[in-house]
C-alpha cells in the first residue's frame, strides 16, 4: 500500500512538473504572427569554424512595448489577450487622421506597407520587453541622472528651435544614427532589420537603418582605450556555451539610449533557439543613471533578405525643405509685422 502511494505521489509530482515546464515554455516562447508556437527544439547548426550559427536576416519589429503599460500588472498575456492587443494596435496604425490637423500632415503608413502588421514581426506573450526589474519598468533614475537630463534639456533650449539650424535637428533626422543600431538593438518603428554574418573570430551585425555595422571581435582583446568614443560604442564578444555574449562600452554620449550616461555598458546575449528565432536579451549597466541594472528581452525573428542600403543622406531633402520652410515663415512674419506698423 505504501509502495502504491509512493508511486502515485511520484506520478503526481512528475506530471505536475511536466505541466509546469510546458506552461512555462509556452508562455516564454516567441511565436510567429498567426502561427502556433514553435516546438522547443535545441538548435545545433554550426558555422564551418564551429560557432553556433546565428547567420541570416532578422527583425525585431514588434508590438511589445519596452516598458509594461500602466495598469497592466501581469508578466504575460494570454494568447487571446495578445491577439486582441495586436489587433487593436494594428487598427490604430491604420486609423485615418483628421484633415486639417498636425497629425494629418504625413503620409499614410499603410499605403507604404510600413505599419507593423503588414511585415514580419515578433509576437511575445510578455507584456513588456523588460524582464528585470520584475515590474517591467525602467528603474528609478539617480540624482546624477536627473541632473544630466535637466542639463541636456536646458542645453537644447539654449540652442533654440530644431528648425533654427541643422545642428539642432535630431541625429536621426540628420541621417547620422537611428534607434535600431544600438546597442541595445531596439525596433526602429519600421525597417527594423538586421543581418548577422559570422567569420572566424568575428561576428558582424548590420543594421538596416542607417546601414550601421558592428564588427565584433571574439578573440578576447580588451575594449578600445577609454578616450576613444564611438556612436555605437566598442563591442567585444565571447561565447558562453551556445550563447554569444557581447559587451559594449565607449559610447560617445551624443545619442544617449534612454538618457543614459556615456559610461553606459550594454551586455547583449544572442541564443539561437530555432530556425526562425534568436533569443536576444540585453542588460543595461549605468550606475550614473539608474539605481540598478535592468534587462530586456526581445526575440529576433527570421526575416527576408537582402537588406537594401538605406542610403539616407542622398535622399534627405527633408532637412533642406524644413530649414527653408522655417526661413520662409520668418520672412512672412517679418513682412506682416512691417505692414502692421
Amino acid at each position, binding site marked *: 500500500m505504501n509502495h502504491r502511494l509512493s508511486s502515485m505521489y511520484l506520478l503526481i509530482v512528475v506530471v505536475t512538473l511536466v505541466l509546469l515546464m510546458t506552461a512555462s515554455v509556452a508562455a516564454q516562447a516567441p511565436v510567429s504572427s498567426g502561427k502556433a508556437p514553435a516546438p522547443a527544439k535545441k538548435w545545433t547548426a554550426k558555422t564551418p569554424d564551429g560557432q553556433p550559427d546565428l547567420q541570416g536576416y532578422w527583425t525585431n519589429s514588434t508590438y511589445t512595448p519596452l516598458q509594461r503599460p500602466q495598469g497592466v500588472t501581469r508578466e504575460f498575456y494570454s494568447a487571446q489577450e495578445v491577439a486582441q492587443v495586436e489587433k487593436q494596435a494594428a487598427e*490604430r*496604425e491604420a*486609423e*485615418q*487622421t*483628421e*484633415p*486639417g*490637423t*498636425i*497629425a*494629418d*500632415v*504625413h*503620409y*499614410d*503608413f*499603410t*499605403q*507604404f*506597407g*510600413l505599419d507593423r502588421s*503588414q*511585415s514580419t514581426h515578433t509576437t511575445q506573450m510578455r507584456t513588456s520587453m523588460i524582464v528585470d526589474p520584475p515590474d517591467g519598468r525602467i528603474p528609478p533614475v539617480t540624482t546624477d541622472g536627473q541632473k544630466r537630463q535637466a542639463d541636456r534639456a536646458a542645453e537644447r533650449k539654449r540652442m533654440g528651435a*530644431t*528648425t533654427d539650424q541643422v545642428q539642432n*535637428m*535630431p541625429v*536621426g*533626422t540628420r*541621417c547620422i544614427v*537611428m534607434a535600431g543600431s544600438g546597442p541595445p538593438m531596439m525596433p*526602429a*518603428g*519600421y*525597417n527594423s532589420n538586421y543581418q548577422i554574418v559570422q567569420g572566424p573570430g568575428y561576428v558582424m551585425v548590420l543594421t*538596416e*537603418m*542607417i546601414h550601421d555595422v558592428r564588427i565584433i571581435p571574439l578573440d578576447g582583446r580588451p575594449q578600445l582605450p577609454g578616450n576613444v568614443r564611438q556612436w555605437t560604442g566598442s563591442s567585444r564578444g565571447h561565447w558562453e556555451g551556445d550563447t554569444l555574449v557581447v559587451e559594449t562600452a565607449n559610447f560617445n554620449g551624443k545619442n544617449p539610449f534612454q538618457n543614459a550616461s556615456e559610461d553606459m555598458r550594454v551586455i547583449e546575449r544572442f541564443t539561437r533557439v530555432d530556425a526562425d528565432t534568436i533569443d536576444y536579451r540585453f542588460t543595461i549597466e549605468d550606475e550614473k543613471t539608474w539605481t540598478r541594472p535592468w534587462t530586456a528581452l526581445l526575440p529576433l525573428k527570421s526575416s*527576408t533578405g537582402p*537588406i*537594401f542600403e*538605406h*542610403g*539616407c543622406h*542622398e*535622399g*534627405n*531633402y*527633408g*532637412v533642406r*525643405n*524644413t530649414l*527653408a*520652410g*522655417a*526661413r*520662409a*515663415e520668418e520672412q512672412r512674419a517679418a513682412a506682416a509685422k512691417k505692414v502692421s506698423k
Partner: protein
Amino acid sequence: MRIRLAIVITGFVLLVATVPVWAHHAFSAEFDVNKPLTLKGTLTKWEMINPHSWFHINVKEPDGKVTEWMIEGGSPNTLIRLGVTKYTVKVGTELTIEGYQAKEGTNKAVGRNFVLADGTRLFLSLNGAVPGGAEDK
C-alpha cells in the same frame, strides 16, 4: 495652376493623433497644415530613396500649361521586401494626391492620400492590385 484648397472628408471614422508618428523627421515642420491641397497629375518619376521616397508628377493646368510637383511619401525598403518595384506604379499613371504644400511655398507637398484614376486608394504593398504591378516588369 489650380490647386483645390479643399479639405477632403473621407468616409472613414476620423480620429485625431492616435497614429504613432515614426517618421524620422517632423513632417509638420516641413509642410504647412494650413495649405491642404489636391493635385491631379501624371507620374513622371518615382524616386525610391531613403529616408522617404518622392513622387514626381506633372499637373496640367486648365490653360494647358504643365506644372511639376514633388510629393513626399514613405521609405521604399519595406515595399521592396514586399515585392514592390519602381514598375509597380508605372510612369504615366494618373494619380490624385491629397496632401499639404511645403512651408517654403515651392511645388512640393507631402502625400497624405494617393488615389488612382478609378478612385481606389493606392496600397503599394498590395502590388498585385495595382495596374502595372511588379509581375509586369
